[in-house]
């Protein structure tokens, strides 16, 4: 039995396709999601939980916006920049969205190179992703500064319902925190990739076990999630 226990990792015995495969995976021993590592499973479940956090924030915001007796400020006017003599609505938000979605693209490329164990390209692409992320946070800081200088506060604003400022700062702030944490994680893992930690079996990130290149993909999952959440914030807060 000892020889069996320490035998190399093998494919499970029977794996039918389709619905039967789904049933057999759930009825099987050891792993419910075959070929999904512990780390990846954990990230997916965390993202499910985090979805509920953002969901609650957005539903709370929507209920506040729908039930307020005071008019809600018009986002197209509030989030306009004065460029070349005319107000361009939502221009900064459009650029921010573009930057964040682009960063998802570079992240996906980093994952690809990570699986080819191409240290330099992986690290470089993660660095570029982090740079896009930092740019996004920077532009958000600019947006916050502009609104604050115009008199928007968590407890009130010059144009209407006080909940406008409070939900705006809370939701974009919470999302911005997510992006910032993502940037920090990207930098830490890019450094580990660059040093070759995952080739020499050094301890991974957030665990005392050997690190794997898969952590690049797991970080990517988080990054794409943060990107996706932004799309919802964009739709519900700015476009509504």
């Amino acid at each position: 039995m000892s020889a069996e226990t320490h035998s190399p990792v093998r494919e499970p015995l029977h794996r039918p396709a389709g619905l039967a495969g789904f049933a057999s995976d759930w009825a099987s021993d050891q792993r419910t999601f075959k070929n999904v590592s512990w780390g990846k499973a954990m990230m997916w479940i965390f993202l499910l939980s985090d979805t509920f956090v953002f969901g609650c924030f957005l539903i709370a915001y929507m209920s506040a916006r729908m039930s307020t007796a005071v008019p809600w400020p018009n986002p197209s006017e509030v989030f306009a920049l004065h460029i070349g003599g005319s107000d361009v609505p939502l221009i900064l938000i459009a650029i921010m969205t573009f930057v964040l979605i682009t960063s998802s693209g570079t992240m996906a490329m980093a994952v690809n190179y990570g699986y080819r164990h191409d240290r330099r390209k992986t690290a470089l692409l993660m660095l570029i992703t982090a740079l896009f992320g930092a740019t996004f946070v920077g532009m958000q800081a600019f947006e916050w500064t502009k609104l604050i200088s115009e008199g928007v506060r968590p407890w009130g604003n010059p144009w209407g319902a006080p909940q406008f400022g409070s939900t705006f700062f809370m939701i974009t702030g919470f999302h911005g925190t997510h992006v910032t944490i993502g940037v920090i994680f990207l930098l830490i893992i890019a450094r580990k990739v660059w040093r070759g930690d995952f080739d020499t079996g050094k301890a991974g990130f957030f665990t005392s076990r050997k690190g794997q290149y898969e952590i690049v993909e797991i970080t990517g999952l988080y990054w794409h999630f943060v990107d996706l959440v932004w799309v919802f914030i964009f739709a519900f807060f700015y476009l509504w």
Partner: protein
Amino acid sequence: MVDIRHGTGEQIGPAEVEDVELYHPHSWWTRYVFSQDAKIIAVQYASTAIAIGMVALVLSWLMRLQLGFPGAFAFIDAERYYQFITMHGMIMVIYLLTALFLGGFGNYLIPLMLGARDMVFPYANMLSYWLYLLAVLVLVASFFAPGGPTGAGWTLYPPQAVMSGTPGGNDWGIVLMLSSLILFVIGFTMGGLNYVVTVLQGRTRGMTLMRMPLTVWGIFTATVMALLAFPALFVACVMMLFDRILGTSFFMPAIVEMGEQLQHGGGSPILFQHLFWFFGHPEVYIVALPAFGIVSDLISTHARKNIFGYRMMVWAIVIIGALSFIVWAHHMYVSGMNPYFGFFFATTTLIIAVPTAIKVYNWVLTLWRGDIHLSLPMLFALAFIVTFVNGGLTGLFLGNVVVDVPLSDTMFVVAHFHMVMGVAPILVIFGAIYHWYPKITGRMLNEAMGQLHFWVTFVGAYLIFFPMHYLGLIGMPRRYYEMGETAFVPASAHTLNEFITIMALIVGAAQIVFLFNLIWSIRHGREAGGNPWRATTLEWQTPETPPRHGNWKELPVVYRWPYDYSVPGAAEDFIPQNQPGATSHAPEGAS
């Protein structure tokens, strides 16, 4: 009578995952304090939870003293009384029950019962405990902060929770409470992800989901629910913290306080109630489902019989878990809502009684003609069934809008939820501690002290909470500091209150016997051996007792379901899960 299936010659697949490397500690500090071993983390969680639970016990004494003997204790003024009930409720529900079931029993039992070496991410698991401890310390700090802890009631309803009329409302109390809850949720998420992934992806060879002991099913389902319900609490806490600190108006409508118009306006207190109860109702089952699971295993082991209807039990747990997310507004019948909503939530609430009743029937049918050993864990399990049925039946009363409206905010509600989610799960916790203590320490708990503890606790709990139903029915409101002179409360009700208070003091004192037993037996208890209850599940088959770091020398292979007790033709009246062979009475698909 029993379905016995012979020699299917089942083939167990090879290991799909390499045996994990564990971080082996090098010093006393990393071995016992900053430990990554789930078993040590479990004991840390449990000790912290019991310690803070003792604080909550003393608080309940103090509030009972006021109710039984109003005005006799000068230091219990109205403000303190509200602080006591608030902290008692919050500590018991979150910091004791949730932490002990999931952080304590979850950490100890999941890896051992599934034949894993540890949780999948021991490092995050360790962080989970330290964040929990930090949350507890922040909570305790509020006792020493200016203005004392919050007195808003455990539901923390705004707007009163953050106003000056409530103790701690415009002091530190509410801020520390909310911060502590936020820390708790973050810490719990780290642990909870571990429990879920360990169950889904970290089982040993042969351990299918339908071969997991019901204990693991209960803890697993409760953890999934917690990961989806705690976000609502997290969001509610963040928003109320902003209302309090930044002056936002998420939950604060326009309010005149002491003749002064406050700066708030336009917020919705009902929104908080929805967020809170979207967490709060699943929370009831986050506490109850692990209890359901554990009690199933206790009954099966100590009645030497397989659990009746194993798969029905599993599906009942899953269905209860799912339904509990669509019943939350039955806590808000008197908050004002569309009558059609009341109808919807009353219906879903009553539907939950179906899977719950299935579980109760199956427990009783497991006992039916069993070889019942009235050991301490069994006594507590039996006490649980009775108490849970009692509390559950009053739940059916309160689930109906027309019955709830007059009974809401009376002692009847207090009696209901203390029976169903206070006393019942606590009884399971006691039973579980008596059951698994021998595995954790290698020694049995003292039987005589245990009997005393059981009988005083069980009978005493009934003497405390049964009369409260009556007090509620005659209209005695809850949350009142003192009743004063009222026409509808007879003098005998006050005598009853005195009686309840004296009982509460006695039952509380019995818990000191239990604590003493826990400590005394570590050195003086009878040697237990590896499997004192002759149980089938994997945690009793470890090579060492207490199990070492990594649990096993070679990972066990599972050949059968966890309930092969009294199998006809077997050499002994139990067959461990890791013993090969065809004789079994597992149902089709579970074997």
